[in-house]
């Protein structure tokens, strides 16, 4: 009997198929989509032109000034009146707008990248921890760490009132004791009573050194901290604390919070980056948590737990690689909105310090001249903002379709 190969009957064995990685597959899907290609093209044009301009096309905003060329309309070739070509016209100080738009890209895009970096690293980490420990029981070492941390943070108030910061150490110690003896009289009110008494004695006795009144207040506060420590607090507590903190940031509209942060830190490009970065933290924290929660339900996590892998290893070997797709998509879209926010701050005069070129600040500088007909000073920086944001949004859309066709955020 002749042997029949799979090829002969038109069947391809899955094991015989050429191996392709997830990322290669995603890349192929992406370059086959028109919108993603357009997005990549726009982003590449902006990235290359700004980087080229920054390193090879010298521009000193401090000396760029020529009142004789003030607010001239765009001209493509030198004329009798103006001896140089200004593709986008000139602004109120006679500066070439084309040059400033290209150089402004460096600042605008930089703000976007740094701000997203801040939100992603802080928010992503918080969301990762919240999601992971919400569905994973704490190990005994993590229990000790969490309880000492709770003891330390909650004792800050009484430590401040008594002006004795060693109380923080005392109650952190009480926390670790509570974590080590977490089975001791578990679930009984006697346990709560015992630990609140211990907390009251620790805080109250040390505060006696200051004054009896202070001691009284500290004893009450210490008792409350002790009672909290006696409870079986676990990952759920950690997660809900993190998410409540995120809710507080989310209770303020983004722009207003960013403006307030810049008002607090003082204007400047770097301050703007921090402000936009802080505002973005909850977005990444929420996303990371929800994706981690769904990953934690998967069988491979159960398998990793049952073969006894440590939490750190599970987190970084199994969880992190599997949440990357939605995070990458959100980061790309986040870049778009960070560039928009940076431009908004610049427009309000809270971003780049003049004469440094930045798209939003250029708009803010020139929009008063709109009524006198100088449309070019407003149109071109705005088009630059819109196109770059559109580029990142298109890229994000394409990435989303390529990385996970079912995903919708």
């Amino acid at each position, binding site marked *: 009997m002749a042997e029949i190969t799979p090829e002969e009957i038109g069947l391809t064995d899955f094991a015989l198929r050429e191996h392709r990685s997830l990322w290669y597959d995603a890349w192929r899907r992406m370059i086959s989509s028109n919108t993603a290609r357009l997005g990549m093209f726009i982003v590449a044009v902006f990235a290359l032109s700004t980087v080229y301009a920054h390193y090879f096309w010298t521009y000193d905003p401090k000396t760029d000034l020529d009142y004789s060329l003030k607010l001239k309309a765009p001209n493509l070739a030198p004329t009798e009146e103006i001896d140089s070509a200004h593709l986008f016209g000139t602004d109120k100080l006679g500066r070439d707008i084309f040059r400033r738009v290209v150089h402004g890209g460096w600042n605008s895009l930089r703000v976007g990248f740094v701000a997203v970096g801040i939100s992603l690293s802080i928010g992503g980490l918080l969301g990762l921890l919240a999601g992971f420990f919400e569905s994973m029981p704490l190990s005994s070492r993590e229990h000790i760490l969490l309880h000492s941390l709770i003891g330390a943070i909650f004792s800050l108030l009484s430590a*401040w*009132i*008594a*002006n004795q910061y060693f109380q923080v150490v005392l109650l952190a110690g009480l926390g670790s004791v509570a974590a080590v003896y977490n089975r001791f009289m578990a679930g009984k009110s006697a346990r709560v009573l015992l630990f609140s008494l211990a907390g009251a004695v620790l805080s109250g006795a040390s505060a006696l050194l*200051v*004054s*009896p*009144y*202070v001691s009284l*207040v500290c004893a009450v506060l210490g008792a409350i901290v002790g009672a909290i420590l006696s409870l079986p607090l676990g990952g759920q507590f950690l997660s809900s604390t993190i998410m*409540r*903190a995120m*809710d*507080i940031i*989310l*209770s*303020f*509209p983004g*722009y*207003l919070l960013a*403006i*307030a942060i810049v*008002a*607090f830190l*003082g204007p400047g490009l770097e301050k703007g980056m921090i402000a936009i970065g802080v505002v973005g933290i909850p977005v990444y924290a929420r996303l990371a948590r929800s994706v981690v929660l769904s990953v934690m339900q998967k069988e491979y996590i159960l398998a990793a737990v049952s073969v006894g892998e440590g939490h750190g290893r599970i987190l970084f070997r199994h969880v992190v690689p599997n949440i990357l797709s939605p995070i990458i998509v959100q980061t790309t879209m986040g870049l*778009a909105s960070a560039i*928009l926010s940076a*431009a*908004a701050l610049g*427009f*309000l005069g809270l971003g780049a310090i003049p004469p440094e070129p930045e798209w*939003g600040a250029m*708009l803010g500088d020139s*929009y008063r001249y*709109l*009524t006198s*007909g100088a*449309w070019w000073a*407003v*149109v071109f920086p*705005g088009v630059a*903002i*819109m196109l770059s*944001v*559109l580029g990142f*949004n*298109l890229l994000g*859309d394409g990435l989303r379709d390529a990385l996970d066709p079912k995903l*919708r955020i």
Partner: protein
Amino acid sequence: MTRYLIRRLISVLPTLIGVTFVIFMFQRLIPGDPAVAMLGEHATEENVARIREQFGLNHPLLLDRDALKEGDWAAFFDSQYLRYLGRLIRFDLGNSIHRRIPVTETLFLRFPATVELALLSMLIAVMVGVPVGITSAARRNSVLDSVSMIGSLIGVSMPIFWLGLMEIMLFAVFLQWLPSGGRLSTGVEVKAITNLILVDSLLTGNIEGFVDALKHIAMPTIALATIPMAIIARMTRSSMLDVLQEDYIRTAHAKGLAEQLVLFRHALKNALLPVVTIIGLQTGILMAGAVLTETIFSWPGIGKWVYDAILGRDYPIVQGGTLLIAIIFVAFNLLVDLSYAYLDPRIHYD
């Protein structure tokens, strides 16, 4: 349902207390002494001390730990933050430092302007966004679908302050059809009832005032509606596409029901839930005041008011305005959650 409502309201409390604390601490940590800011840099020590006394700025921020040492309980709790909380409970937001009038008074004038702009923008965003989303989903991959989806992506990417400037350039400067800012022209008066000028002018039968107010609100409304419109259209489309793949849609088609009936009766009803969520959240954002739109169009809403106050270090306005904004925000999120129960009978709260 009632129990769920109560539980949700209680769960909002820690967030709100956190919000008051953040608002309070933030303003106090901003560099610059408010008393000096009020009096100018050449104020005498004596005057600064008097103002600090008058506004309670000489009290400690949180608690007076030095007073406690002496056993002075009243002084221990007599701090700026607790005073602030106490006043909040009595709806007293204090007086503006610069203008010396109660914050609540200005709030009642300013907030309706924001509400009027936000609601009108949302109305337009929904009236355009939802039908566009439905048609795109029904005619998937058609030219119409591509055009509206590219349009909505451009809408999402639009810097709205720039869009506002372009509107001013076109309609106010070149064509001169519309005024470039404000709520009413000088000389036009509308009797205030609700402070929503469009409503007030209709109630009093003031057609001239209504038309004038409409002309003023047109451009900021379009600028503000752009982003929500684009988001709603995208959300409606993707939600409709999900639902249109369901088995019961195929069944409905198989029964021979008219396309319109399937689309609106069977698909739309089930696709609305995420759309309503987005509409609610976006309304919350718009209600919170649009700093940029209000700045460009000199619209006297709360966004611009708080922004000016931040720059001018007028703490009571910043605190009062931000608190109101945060409460509205939180309230809209809560409303969205509660609306699920009505829209989706499968969801039960107990």
